[in-house]
């Protein structure tokens, strides 16, 4: 294959469309072999790569309003790939791939120090406190393209990188030089019944995600499109997940450290 232009995979999530149904969470769990336990109500211990938060505007009845916010790994680029988690990992278990813009997580290298969890401002990283258990033959539905994580390692959303690898393989087999936009879509994007998630290459002006976000690459990837924002923009993490909301209070909360949030 020829040397290809660097890609920057990212997402635009339309919060006006998102209904908070949770399909993205379960699609992700099924695709990525995320384990489950009998009690998952302690959300600090509950492993979910994609989590849907419920935001409230804090106003009393009947002016109360809520908005759902799905939160995968933000795949921060920071400055030149210095995302918060990558910088602190002592085991080189997490890395920023400049060819795809994806922040990887290599489970076999991780020894569970959890520095990355402390560094991540988005709480996307989760620690496996327990051995994963699939009772009664349930391991039969495990996906062979994703490794099963063991107790003691940190895991997080990978933008379904296995799907990128498969798309590349398929393109190679079919003699194509590059993959098409629809060849590589994350499980959550594919499942979303509201079509609220758009995924693609932010560097490719033909991709929908680029057209929606219109990222200003000279200005840390800030969105130029109206009503778009990124979470905690002022931290300078340069994330690749963009959110869209026509509600001002939602956009304001997106950059508020002390947001009133309910874990979902």
């Amino acid at each position, binding site marked *: 294959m020829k040397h290809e232009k660097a890609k920057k995979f990212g997402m635009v999530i*339309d919060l*006006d469309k998102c*209904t908070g*149904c*949770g*399909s993205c*969470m*379960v*699609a992700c*769990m*099924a*695709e990525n072999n995320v384990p*489950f*336990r*009998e*009690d*998952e*109500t302690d*959300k600090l211990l509950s492993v*979910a790569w994609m989590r849907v938060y*419920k935001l*409230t505007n804090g*106003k009393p*009845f*009947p002016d*109360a*309003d*809520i908005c*759902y916010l799905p939160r995968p790994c933000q795949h921060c680029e920071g400055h030149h790939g210095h995302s918060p988690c990558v910088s602190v990992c*002592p*085991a080189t278990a997490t890395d920023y791939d400049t060819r795809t813009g994806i922040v990887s997580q290599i*489970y*076999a290298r991780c*020894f*569970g120090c959890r520095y990355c969890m402390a560094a991540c401002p988005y709480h996307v990283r989760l620690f496996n406190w327990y*051995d*994963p258990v699939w009772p*009664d*033959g*349930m*391991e*039969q*539905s*495990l*996906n*062979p393209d994703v*490794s*099963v994580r*063991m*107790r*003691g*390692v940190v895991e997080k959303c990978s933008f379904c990188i296995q799907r990128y690898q498969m798309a590349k393989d398929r393109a190679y087999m079919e003699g194509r030089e590059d993959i098409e936009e629809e060849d590589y879509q994350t499980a959550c994007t*594919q*499942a979303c*019944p*509201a*079509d609220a998630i758009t995924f693609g290459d932010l560097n490719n002006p033909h991709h929908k995600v680029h057209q929606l976000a219109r990222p200003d690459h000279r200005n840390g990837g800030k969105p130029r499109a109206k009503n778009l924002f990124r979470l905690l923009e002022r931290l300078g993490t340069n994330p690749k997940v963009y959110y869209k909301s026509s509600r001002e209070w939602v956009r304001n909360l997106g950059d508020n450290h002390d947001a009133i949030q*309910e*874990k*979902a």
Partner: protein
Amino acid sequence: MKIDRRSFLSFTIGGAAGTALSPLPWKLTDDMAIWTQMWPWTPVPEKGEVTYVKSACTLCPGGCGISVRKVDDRIVKIEGLKGHPVNDGSLCILGLAGAQLLYGPRRVKAPMKKINGKFREVSWEQALDEISKTLADLRSKGEPHTVACIADSDRGTVPELLNRFLRVYGSRNFIRTPSIQDSYELTLNLMQGVRAMAGFDVNNADYVLSFGSGILDGWGSPVHMFKAHSLWREHGGKLIQIEPRLSSTAAKSDSWIPINPGTEGTLALGIAHVMIKESLYDNDFIDNYSTGFHEWKRHIIDGYNPEIVGKVTGVAPSTIVGLASSFARARKPLAVCGRGKGLTPGSLKEFMAVHTLNAMVGNIGKEGGIWAVPEPEYIEWPELEMDQTASIGTQQHRADGAGSSLYPQARYLLNRLPETMNASSTYKLIQVLFVAGANPVYSMPGSADIKEAFEKIPLVVSFSSYMDETAQMADLILPNHTFLERYEDVPAAAGYNRPVINLARPVVEPRFNTMHTGDVIIRLARALGGTIAKALPWESYEACLEEMMGDRWDTLVEEGYWTNTDFAAPQWSEAFETASGKFEFVNKEISSLARYSPVKPEGDEAAYPLILIPFDTMRLWNGYIGDPQFVIKSVPDTVLKKNDVLVEVNPATAKSIGLRDGAYAVLSTPKGKARVKVHFYEGVMPGLVALPRGLGHSAYENNLAGKGINFNELVGPFDDAATGHDAAWGIRAKLAKA
């Protein structure tokens, strides 16, 4: 050698620096990761050949097509079927977790018989023998009408086989579990004269007035509704949500109109009043294609002016006027009703009130309007040849009282059954009960009464693939294959406006010693012999299905679904099959029904100052299927915390009782009592307590069992005066410090 301070420090620091520069620490961290993490018990899923199988999801009436990803003979993922008219590639949270229902521990692995309160495995021969003997006995005693069947649908070959079997055996007691389908069917039947399902052209509607329907909480075909909502967002369509609680639907709507619970029908008539007063209706439709408008109009003008309606509903009169005006002036307005997911049929007159709004804007059968979707016509079986026992049996009244002189309109009245059964202590109303694809012990209001009624039935046979609450109470379980292991036709998607048939097919071989319910029925018929065997002559269920599908079969196998893309709603001149051939606002049958009045919640206001309402969400399923592991995992900790359910209470209401956020409280209603936690929520009307439906299971694995409480244990059915269907939307309640 003398070790002084200087050389000691040089040695230590030098050593540390040397070690740090060597690969040792890095090698050690790497090894540490390996030593501490490579446990042999962490499964390594096997690689294999990847294939995709087109099939159908049967977990809710939504009618979605699925594409099942397999690795060799394992199912690893269920995805939406691209190009399917209902869900086009997307899938809901429950469908996505479908593989857990196949592989999970809740499966019933072989036919079971309850002996001294414990289930023992039996052979299929023994189980079928036992049932056919009991059935033959009842026939010889002339009591075939005491056999009944509860199923979640009356469409498709399996429900039709069950129904046909019952008929030719001598019983009319086929009972469909209740839902808004009951009310919509009757509304279309009474006002339009058609036997049809209500379909909504939501994709093309541009102003949707929802009277409490959880359009984004699982009402109708969930994925289809979500997609429509996204279209509205793109094209400027509006959604107006009328309900007392800020649900997900209300939060996504353009305007949320809180309303006193139970008064939605009054508001609909108030809107109708304004539309009449301001002549905001479709003259062509009213003048040429409807009758009774002027008679009906008088009653609306007298009783439903905005001031009166405002007092009842709590909606400001100016808002009512505004709603009427924007609804009537929209290009493609649509009014829908049926609260939450639509599990309770509700008050028929409320549905009719909302339907008159659709009639007044003339959207019946139009783009963006409400369509009458004909029942699937592919199941054509020869007229039944009945023997004498069957003829006498089918002349008996239905056990649930549907179609009786008291409730002539109702087709099925499962909600009335427990009361009828529990009232008589000796008379055996039902002696054998089949339950197929339903879990009434959990999903029907008044759980205690249902359980009591079930205990009275000498033989309860469950066809459930899962050990659910109803299966637990059964005497025999004849487990069906799961939807991923069997053929089955899934006709019509709930709320979709075109005919569609999906084909579920065996994606994998049956994992356990289960049998297709269709085959069980055919085998039972064969064992009983005579006219019964003749009525169900097929070799197997598969043969029956293939025969019914005829020339559609190849398309179904190839595509996974069949749809009539040419289907169009008939012109108004041909659409109505009433006596007048027109849409009837009023007719003899409608006038004979009790007048509309808001359904009051059960209970005494002094003892129970608050009102308990249920709410539905996509993350909690409350019909036949209980949440699989992934789905219950997605439930927020503001709904479920450890084993405690949180009830939503407006902070003002909670503080007046002295309850803090997160505090334990005792929630009591005239029907029962439960320990709950309080969750402050500004999105719920003061004076109300909102409880999620779908928790409080006693069955299933520990991920779900024993968590929260079942709303149905705190509420009882309330018979709609017009139909006898359950119209309860809530119940009076009290919340006290625990």
